[in-house]
């Protein structure tokens, strides 16, 4: 008997933690890490639901399959993110997002 509500609640809290990081940290690397936390909660949910699906079913395996894809996606994202960090550091000499306010109109 797996307590799915616990898992979902836990992943919800983790999601909130990640969000907190995104909202408050100004270091780009930490931002990246926060996003990774959020990503992982999503993967966790997929796995939880795949386990929750009754029986050997297409739905169950598909959940895991999607999770695999997501792991790959998240890894890619880290790679690109770090490339950006390097570029940012080279151009601005800082990885502080507050200083990279190019989005302002």
């Amino acid at each position, binding site marked *: 008997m797996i307590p799915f509500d616990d898992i979902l609640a836990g992943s919800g809290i983790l999601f909130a933690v990640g969000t907190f990081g995104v909202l408050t940290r100004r270091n780009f690397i930490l931002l990246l890490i926060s996003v990774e936390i959020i990503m992982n909660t999503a993967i966790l949910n997929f796995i939880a639901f795949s386990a929750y699906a*009754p029986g050997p079913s297409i*739905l169950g395996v*598909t959940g895991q399959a999607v999770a695999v894809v997501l792991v790959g996606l998240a890894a890619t994202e880290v790679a690109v993110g770090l490339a950006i960090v390097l570029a940012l550091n080279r151009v601005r000499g800082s990885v502080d997002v507050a200083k990279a306010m190019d989005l302002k109109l």
Partner: protein
Amino acid sequence: MEISPLTILLVLAFGGTALTFVAGRSARFVALGTAIATLVVTLGLLAMFSLSELLSYQFLQVNTWFTFMGAPGSPGLSIDYAVGIDGISLPFLLLSAVITVATVIYHWGEEKNPAGFFGLLLLTNAGLLGVFVSLDILLFFVFWEVVLIPMFFLIGHWGGPRRQYAALKFFVYTHVASVVMLVSLLAMVFLGHWPSFDFTDMTAVQGYNASIPEVAQVFLFGGLLFGFGVKLPMVPFHTWLPDAHVEAPTGGSVFLAALLLKMGGYGLIRLAFPLLSLGREALTPLVFFFAFLSIVWGAYLSLSQRDLKRLVAYSSINHMGVVLLAIGLWTQLGVMAAVLLMFAHGLVSGLLFMISGSVHHSFGTRDIPSVGGMTSRTPILSTMLMVGSLASLGLPALVSFPAEFSAFLATWESLRYLVFLPLMALVVTAAFYIWMMQRLSFGPPHGIPADAKDLPLPEMMGMVILVALIVLYGILPFLLVHIITVSPIFGACYPGGGGVCPGLP
């Protein structure tokens, strides 16, 4: 997997578009090649089209693109790549292909970034083909948007002095309409619990929609009416049209009037009217109101215009008002007339906008009072103007006549004495064309620059193609009508077609 010819058509159209974009200096050859290839495939479809397959779409190809899994036990919702045509979409395909060929030829001498220009034209065409063949709501919407974007750039980059304003107005109007349309379509799918987004089986879809309560249907129908009506355009949502037409380059105007407006009417016939019967019944008076308003409004506004392009633009509003009226009647005669009239209007308004463009090239202005007696200097252009005007006001033996006659006859059958209203507007329509011709073509020449030239060959070729079709289908309308009536909307109404008409009374 069976590949439908329609898929080949789409691949051809989009592939040719891509090639045109990168073709650089030789873009016009690539564009013409693509356009002609598209036309050939369309003619092939015309030849292969079966007149006896009355109840289903032809050249059907349905592949599930992906499926949203529903909760365990519920069927889920699939998005399909579903294409197919019937007699209602085939004329539009033909129109689209022909207009593209004619426009490319007309613009043979385009100087300003031809690769971009022809590429965008072809992209519009490809999107239009997609709209007319797609039988899945999301696919339909995707192609719908594909059509709108290149037109924005055509107006905004190649247009006249106020092109920025016009392009933005066009964009905002059509996208607000698109959003409303999309929301209504999605709501229809969800509220009706469709198993997939495709609507290849009209009877089945009508069955799903029967479970939608009337209140919701009225809202959905209203949303679709607005979404398609802006495109049509119906008064009072029409003011984007004159601006867009006036500022757009000639080819853009031709596409706008001849093809983009038809998307609205096509959407109404394909989606709004057959699928939402309760909403239709409730809102039909509103449809008639808008239709009459558009007819009268368009006619009178044309009369007050000085700019030739604006005049033609407002006359489009008038004609599309008749189309809306004919669709609104929702009888066999009415729907047939609407499709025929849209086809006719596509050819005729395309011709008239080409003429307006040529008038502008030759005389440097489109202001009607400041040019006169052009018959003596540019007889060919003047003749074309006369043919176009006479065709537009419904001269027999030209394609508009059977269409308008049927539309008004159908109106009489359903609405009796109300037919006076559009018919009186018909007199005004005749008045503004005849008056325009009197001022532009006849009388002693004035306001004609010394270097005014008659039509260059490419422009004339473009027009001649359209004139030939206008005459052909004017004399032999059954060539088209026989096709139009082969559709699931008409299908079961044939004797021996099953007895129950799912679509039309």
